[in-house]
């Protein structure tokens, strides 16, 4: 009797302690993920080039040129050197080399808000940046709509993204775990954790649509039917400011996302987003698995 119990126990232990591979991301999700990455990369950097054409943000319907919320500009100091000045809510910061003034494509320090290595195209070229921006904006929107449709249809949204009741109950501990860089291991890593679900949902439901709508709010033609929305956010220049802030929030998401991808196993995570296969590693302490 005792030995058979031990055997059963041992075999159960064995299946848990042997690494196994799950199929984590379906092909459409993987394709759409990388298209989205490409779009966001190009939209952000061409967006910086567009911003450079008038490097100031305002609140309201129009531009109050003498009182921007944020401005990046350059001036010459007493030695005649070009210095970059970033003004935020009236406070000036010297940001030479990065914002306001940086080494341009001709090799000398020039007046430009974002530096060449952060803009598409590199040299000052608003017309070309707009072409990149609008082309990839369309791709971003079409890809995003396909993603939402697919996620609802395939139940990816309800199965993998919607937080469960247990998720909500565990949210406090999940916050502590994230702060301590303690990540789910073993079988628990096969599912998204609650903070992960909420941040993905926030990007998909709030930030994504908002950045598109605030882009459309800047269109003088769409203004004829979206005037109410422009008014709702305080005017066209407010919409432009919100467009910028949401882009910053998406960068923040990107960096946290990449950080988590690295600390929870770069190779395994990358493989799962390329081939779909994700390895579940056994946990040393089987009690971890069960809780």
């Amino acid at each position, binding site marked *: 009797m005792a030995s058979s119990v031990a055997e059963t126990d041992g075999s159960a232990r064995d299946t848990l302690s042997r690494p196994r591979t799950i199929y984590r991301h379906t092909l459409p999700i993987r394709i759409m993920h990388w298209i989205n990455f490409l779009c966001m990369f190009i939209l952000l950097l061409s967006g910086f080039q567009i911003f450079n054409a008038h490097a100031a943000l305002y609140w309201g*319907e129009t531009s109050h*040129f003498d009182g921007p919320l944020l401005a990046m500009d350059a001036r010459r100091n007493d030695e005649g050197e070009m210095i970059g000045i970033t003004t935020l809510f009236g406070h000036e910061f010297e940001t030479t080399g990065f914002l306001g003034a940086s080494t341009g494509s001709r090799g000398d320090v020039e007046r430009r808000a974002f530096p060449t290595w952060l803009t*598409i195209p590199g040299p000052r070229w608003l*017309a070309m940046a707009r072409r990149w921006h609008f082309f990839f904006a369309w791709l971003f929107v079409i890809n995003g709509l396909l993603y939402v449709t697919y996620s609802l249809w395939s139940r990816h949204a309800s199965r993998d993204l919607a937080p469960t009741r247990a998720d909500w109950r565990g949210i406090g501990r999940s916050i502590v775990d994230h702060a301590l860089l303690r990540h789910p291991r073993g079988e628990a890593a096969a599912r998204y954790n609650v903070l992960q679900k909420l941040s993905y949902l926030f990007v998909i439901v709030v930030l994504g649509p908002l950045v598109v709508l605030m882009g459309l709010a800047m269109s003088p033609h769409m*203004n004829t039917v979206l005037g109410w929305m422009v008014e709702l956010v305080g005017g066209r220049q407010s919409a432009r400011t919100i467009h910028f802030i949401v882009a910053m929030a998406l960068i923040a998401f990107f960096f946290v996302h990449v950080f988590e991808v690295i600390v929870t196993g770069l190779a395994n995570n990358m493989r799962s987003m390329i081939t779909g296969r994700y390895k579940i590693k056994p946990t040393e302490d089987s009690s971890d698995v069960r809780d």
Partner: protein
Amino acid sequence: MSGIDRRQFLARALTAGGAFLLGGCDRLSQSVWFPKVLDSAEFLNRTVQRALTPRDALATEFPESYISPVFRPNGSTDPQNPAYRALAAGGFRDYRLEVRGLVEHPMSLSLDELRALPSRTQITRHDCVEGWSVIGKWKGARLSALLDRVQPLPAARYVMFHCADTLGSSDARYYESIDMLDAYHPQTILAYELNDRTVPIENGAPLRVRIERQLGYKMAKYIMAIELVESFVDIKGGKGGYWEDRGYEWYAGI
């Protein structure tokens, strides 16, 4: 690979990858074929935006309290060509707007004759392609009324504006074009007044067009002649406007 090696490798790979991507983007921008691919977005912008909005949907109009203290001038602010200087010196009393091309009745109109045409007054927002906006009150002759007088021929598809100014060091005259849909839009006016005064020189005296559903560069200033054409591919740079010839979209609805 040890942790440090891997980190160094990653950092280098990211830097190299980033430089490769950005360098690649710049090379694509310089190529002939890739900008043409990107241009498909302009077709989508125009067709989808127009499909989603009523044909004569009006741009938002604002109360007087919204008018900007200064209507920021941009582009040319003081045309130097001698003929224009002479007109300006005479307070534009000798100004004539020539209307020609594919029309039944070509004509030339004085400012008084333009003022006698049915007019419209509107307080609208001016959105520059650079990203800034100002609001001004414009009064002008409805372009539709002028077109009714000259009677466009059936072949006429675009209204082209020929201007007095050149920009920067180039000696190319500014010009612009719109299609009939925008030409007959109720808010499309040939403006002779800004904020209850005659249009100042820096804002386009004596006549500038307002096309309220597009960006500022479409709204040609210092208009000397209006020409109705079937196509603009054989005119100047072939793209339908001064900035269009320099890479900007012909459809500037966004």
